[in-house]
């Protein structure tokens, strides 16, 4: 049996009609059926250990405890550190690496009674938008196995889409949670920068990324966010704020919601994407939501180059440490320099090496002003434009310019691959929250819509997201 939403599972568990152990067995049925075709997990935890954990949660319930995620099965992206399972970030370079500590988000999941079932596939070090660039294997989209699930958190999204977990953690550096959500008819939220601790997240681009909740409904995403959010003394970039309470926000009166659609956020997308979103917005307007098309983010066209310059500079720096001295993967050579060179040549994939080289160039003496410093300036301009607009309205736009591509369709040309992120990177540059929810289907393929609000307005996004679900009826859909 497949259960549509985590909220429904939680109801069953709290009412006693479903035990965590029974639920885990249901999930395993789904995994056995789908996983060989989808390949969403890099590591599935030992089944006995997972069942033991389910019994542990059960005894908590028997003691009268009601942890907020009791018995819910969570899939965790493989760039989020777990001391009970290898954490590879989808790279050969980290094969065999088991961190000696848990990410703060993982600690909070465990304290909330969640059952972690496995670590999900991803583009190597989160560098990609299709999950084809995993060092291990590509993940397939459960809605169409010929197509990609999006990336880089494609494993988490695909697993959710077939019912291999109730909730999932991904990470979103430039759309890595929202793009897969849009491609798999699931929901993903990139939180306000600093709302969720990055402690334990294997870094790609520190100033842009957030560990991000994913699920099959807005309410479920809110539940997960409420558990993992809030200040963390182990992450100096977390905001001085407690955990959110977005799962208990009352439904908003539609007439109090105001949406702007800057043309830059939808121009250039494929006709089916465009028409699906416009149709949805019309229906929201009919519900009483104010929708304005008279809006512009004039610097949006610069977002992609600005984003890639900053992201790759930070990435080049973050990936320097993988030199064969502290991690299991090493290619030993007669001396230090050759060992470092060989380890990095063989441990990193092609795209990762490309991004390191570009990042090094962006930071090099003589190029830094032209690239990194200019990008930092561009980022401030984009951020100010976005913040100016979100003060007045929720920004709506496409998540991806195209429906999910076929495997192999985009990765041959890096520029085509990077272009998939054109609408999503804006929220990361601005640090604002962004929610991707299903907007509809075209030709059997899921399409998503994206909403951005001011920092810490996650609650507002959840309210709008639930309204969208009401309108589309796409809540808790599975392939």
């Amino acid at each position, binding site marked *: 049996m497949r259960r549509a939403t985590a909220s429904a599972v939680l109801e069953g568990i709290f009412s006693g009609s479903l035990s965590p152990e029974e639920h885990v067995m249901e999930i395993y049925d789904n995994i056995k059926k789908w996983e060989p075709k989808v390949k969403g997990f890099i590591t599935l935890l030992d089944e006995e250990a997972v069942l033991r954990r389910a019994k542990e949660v059960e005894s908590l319930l028997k003691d009268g405890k009601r942890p907020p995620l009791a018995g819910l099965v969570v899939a965790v992206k493989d760039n*989020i*550190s777990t001391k009970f399972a290898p954490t590879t*970030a989808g790279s050969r370079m*980290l094969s065999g690496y088991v*961190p*000696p*500590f848990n*990410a703060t988000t993982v600690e909070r999941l465990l304290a909330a009674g969640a059952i972690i079932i496995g670590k999900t596939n991803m583009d190597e070090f989160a560098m990609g938008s299709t999950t084809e660039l995993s060092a291990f294997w590509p993940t397939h989209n459960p809605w169409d196995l010929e197509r990609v699930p999006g990336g880089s958190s494609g494993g988490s999204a695909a697993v959710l889409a077939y019912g291999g977990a109730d909730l999932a953690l991904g990470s979103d550096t430039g759309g890595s949670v929202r793009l897969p959500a849009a491609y798999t008819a699931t929901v993903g939220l990139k939180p306000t920068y600093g709302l969720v601790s*990055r*402690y*334990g*997240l*294997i*870094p790609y*681009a*520190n*100033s842009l990324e957030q560990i991000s909740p994913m699920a099959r409904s807005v309410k479920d995403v809110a539940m997960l966010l409420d558990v993992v959010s809030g200040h963390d*003394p*182990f*992450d*100096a*970039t977390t905001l001085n704020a407690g955990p959110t309470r977005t799962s208990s926000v009352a439904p908003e009166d539609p007439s109090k919601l105001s949406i702007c659609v800057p043309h830059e956020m939808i121009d250039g997308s494929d006709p089916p994407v465009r028409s699906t979103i416009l149709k949805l917005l019309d229906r929201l307007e009919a519900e009483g939501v104010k929708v304005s098309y008279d809006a512009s983010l004039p610097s949006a066209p610069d977002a992609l180059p600005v984003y890639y310059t900053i992201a790759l*500079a*930070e990435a*080049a*720096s*973050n990936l*320097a*440490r993988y*030199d064969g*001295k*502290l991690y299991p993967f090493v290619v030993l050579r007669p001396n*230090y*320099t050759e060992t*470092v060179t060989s380890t990095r040549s063989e441990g990193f994939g092609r795209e990762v090496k490309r991004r390191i080289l570009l990042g*090094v160039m962006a*930071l*090099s*003496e003589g190029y*830094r002003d032209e690239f*990194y*410093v200019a990008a*930092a300036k561009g980022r401030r301009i984009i951020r100010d434009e976005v913040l100016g607009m979100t003060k007045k309205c929720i920004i709506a736009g496409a998540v991806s310019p195209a429906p999910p591509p076929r495997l192999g369709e985009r990765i041959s040309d890096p520029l085509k691959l990077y272009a998939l992120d054109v609408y999503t990177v804006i929220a990361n540059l601005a640090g604002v929250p962004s929610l991707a929810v299903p907007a509809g289907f075209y030709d059997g393929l899921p399409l998503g819509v994206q909403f951005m609000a001011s920092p810490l307005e996650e609650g507002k996004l959840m309210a709008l997201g639930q309204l969208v679900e009401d309108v589309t009826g796409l809540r808790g859909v599975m392939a």
Partner: protein
Amino acid sequence: MIGLEVHVQMTETGTKLFCDCRSNYRGMEPNTNVCPVCLGLPGALPVPRRRPLVFATALSMLMVCETPPAMIFTRKHYFYPDLPKDYQITQYQGGGGAPVCLGGRARYYDPDTDEWREVRIRRINVEEDPGRTEYEGSITSSEAAYVDYNRSGVPLVEVVTEPELRSPRDARRFVEYLLLMMEYIGATNPRLEGAFRVDANISVRGGERVEVKNIGSTVDLERAIKYELFRQEKLISQGGAVERETRGWDPARRLTKPQRSKETEEEYLYFPEPDIPPISMKELVIEAAPLTLRDPAKYMDVITARGIPRRQAWSIVLYRPALSLYLKSLDKGADPLLAARMIAVDLKGLLKKLNADLYGASSWPSPDVIAGLTRLVRSGDYSYDEIKYNSLPKLALNPSASLSDVLPPRSNNIEDAVEVVIARERKAVSDFINGKPEALDYLVGSVLKMRRGYAVDPKLVRKVLLSRLTGAQDGHSNGGDGADSTANSRS
């Protein structure tokens, strides 16, 4: 021209710069003072600790620095085995970074010339120390390199001067004074092994700048610069050219050796550390303000204002416990000049001879004793020399002794000495009896000499002698009961 880059560990902060491992790793087994943060494991994040930042701010304030609105950490990249992340978190001016000090000037005392000098400071930055690489035997013969990360992440300040130090000795004096400031604000114990390292940039007229790296003591600093100036001047006088290069100091052979030439300019890929938000200086300046009161120069002023010569004041300030003893003894009413002389000259000399730890508070006596001794000298009860030769040696050996333990005993049987002297100095006695009063002075002196080691009051001796001699003339033999009672009346 000489410019310095001085790296001083903040050994006394308790924690490392970005985690709670210990700032003083000495005596620990290799790789036992480590955690995910200072090992640079992916996902572990640096969270700046407050104390090192406050200390660095205090130093910047003492060096009259211009400070930025907020300090911004920077990543500096280079591949090295003991650098776990292959980048160091430091502070860099430019590229979006902001060091704690953007320029200032440091005053330092030169005891050789008894002058205050000044050098402009180009920058001060806070950074993390790397780990340590060790070899079996030498770097070339060792089978392997062993990396110990216990030191990784220990907080450092790097102080960069303008190239305007005048001589090897001048450079040494500056560093000595810098270390004293770090010790005074409570940041550093400069006597710990490896607590500081100096890189010196040295150039002579007509030559390029040469950097000499890794100088580990102030004595070596003076030697290294002296050697390097000599080498460069000789090279130029022989018609050669001094190329821009980096050399290393070999303390055993006392010479500098080429390390690498600078034809390949380093590429450090600086950019602001995204894991650490800018840290406002405003609160740091407020927090650091009380520390700046512990400025050695201020204490020098306090002491010299009492009429004490500067060199003597320096001798006191050089050792924190001596300063504390001095100031406390003034509070207890000590005479400032006498106390300075006791502490800075005589007691210090004795302690040095005993190889006592001058930096240890327990090597020094209590302020009550010093105050008491100066009072007794001041009132004329004892001469300074009596205290110097009798009391101070006892105090040096036993610093916890009380005043009464160390005061030279008053002789209560001057009569014995008087008898001996009268029996021995027959000529002087007869001279006196025969009407030469000055002979009495000689006799008094002889008695005093005999009683060396005790405090003896010359007036009392004179009185006893007089009564004894006049009594002898009268044919009386006097036991001296009267003298006894007088001798005891002085305590």
